[in-house]
């Protein structure tokens, strides 16, 4: 049995052309990140959760296996989640993508020593590669990173560090600050797998929104005595028309609710996920090398309502 990788990159997406040119953007970013990690001689796996694939379109997993350089294909495992889970789990019919339940599916099945929950359009900086390889990461600590947004319209057809590190290509953005180092937290949450599992991943009880679930994880971590810190180096984000930063002020109320859900008390109220978080009991079936399908089974679906697990921050109950 091979040793577990140092890092698990947990991503979620599907072949729906989100934000335009989704697939080419995603593949370019993923290849860049994997090359960066390989340069630093860091072993890594990619856990891609293809949440509720769009009917009638090829699977993102298949496209990825075709497009990725052969040397990286082995380190990618995709879990294709049956579309019925979205409908069975959702508490907000307008919300179309339960992003953090999807990420939990990946976190649950990751095997790395450290797990980085991130997004498909997030690029690791060279300094981040060095920081990850420095051997200074501590377990029982949530690492956050400042996100630098690259200007909309820059030529990102070929990614290279000169392009990324050039301040002329950056959009101004507020830096993350203590105690939570919040702000686009869903783009970079890194911690050891054991602690991630002990915290039972992201909130699966408030399935009304995507927005704020990442922040809520930080509140949960802090409330559980897990320190949060800024890892130092930044990450880069290629701006696109559908991103939250770009469209939060222009989207209609209905559009906003379908993309992100409604705002809620994510700074104060936390959660205590069930033992079977991350669709633990969803039957897994291997479709081909590196591609698994999580079939639908009502037994894997948590109850619609589990109110005693919604708790005030600092008062998390233990099983």
């Amino acid at each position, binding site marked *: 049995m091979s040793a577990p990788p140092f890092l698990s990159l947990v991503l*979620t*997406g*599907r072949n*729906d*052309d*989100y*934000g335009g040119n*989704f697939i080419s953007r995603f593949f370019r970013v993923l290849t860049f990140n994997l090359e960066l990690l390989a340069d630093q001689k860091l072993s890594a796996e990619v856990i891609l959760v293809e949440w*509720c694939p*769009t*009917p*009638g*379109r090829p699977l993102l997993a298949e496209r990825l296996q075709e497009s990725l350089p052969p040397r990286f294909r082995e380190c990618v495992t995709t879990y294709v989640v049956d*579309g*019925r*889970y*979205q*409908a*069975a789990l*959702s*508490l*907000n*019919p307008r919300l*179309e*993508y339960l*992003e953090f339940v999807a990420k939990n599916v990946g976190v649950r099945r990751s095997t790395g020593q450290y797990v980085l929950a991130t*997004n*498909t*359009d997030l690029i690791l900086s060279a300094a981040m590669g060095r920081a990850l390889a420095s051997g200074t990461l501590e377990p029982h600590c949530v690492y956050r990173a400042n996100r630098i947004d690259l200007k909309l319209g820059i030529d990102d057809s070929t990614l290279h560090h000169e392009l990324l590190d050039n301040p002329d290509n950056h959009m101004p953005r507020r830096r993350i600050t203590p105690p939570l180092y919040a702000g686009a937290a*869903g783009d970079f949450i890194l911690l050891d797998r054991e602690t991630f599992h002990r915290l039972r991943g992201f909130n699966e*009880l*408030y*399935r*009304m929104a*995507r927005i704020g679930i990442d922040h809520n994880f930080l509140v949960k971590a802090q409330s559980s005595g897990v320190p949060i810190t800024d890892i130092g180096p930044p990450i880069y984000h290629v701006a*696109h028309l*559908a*991103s*939250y930063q770009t469209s939060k002020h222009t989207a209609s109320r209905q559009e906003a609710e*379908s*993309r992100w859900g*409604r705002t*809620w*008390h994510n700074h*104060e*109220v936390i959660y205590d996920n069930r033992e079977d978080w991350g669709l633990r009991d969803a039957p897994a079936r291997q479709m081909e090398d590196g591609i698994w399908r999580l079939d*639908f089974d009502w037994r894997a679906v948590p109850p*619609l*309502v589990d*109110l005693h697990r*919604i*708790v*005030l*921050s600092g008062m998390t109950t233990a099983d």
Partner: protein
Amino acid sequence: MASGILGRFGLARAAHVRAATARADKFKTRTAALKQQLHAALDEAAQWKQQAAQLNTRATAAMHAIDRRKGKDAGHLDELATLRDKFHRLQEAEQTIALTRGHLLTMETKLDVLEGAITVLDRRTRDHLEHGTTEPSIEPAVTAKPS
């Protein structure tokens, strides 16, 4: 012998007289000096007495002032104790408000979840009644992926 004969006639030798006179003069000088010292000591004593009287007056005044201050301080201490008590009660009230607010937010969140569940169940019921299905449907193609 000679002094004995002179003594019978009430006379003394000149040397004795000169010595006695010198001793008398010395005693006179000494007496005068002592008198002067006595006067100076008396003056000093009078000054000390005056100072003592002044200090006594001031001490009495200070005692009165202390008594007055004690009365005032007792009032201030009472006031301080009251303020401290109020401050503690205020802190407790703030904590209670924060906790109550937290519970209200938790209740609101739970109500959100309940509302969501009711909406979903309502949809499922309607779907079941209309189409006879109990399986959750796959949502139509949508454009929403995290960023």
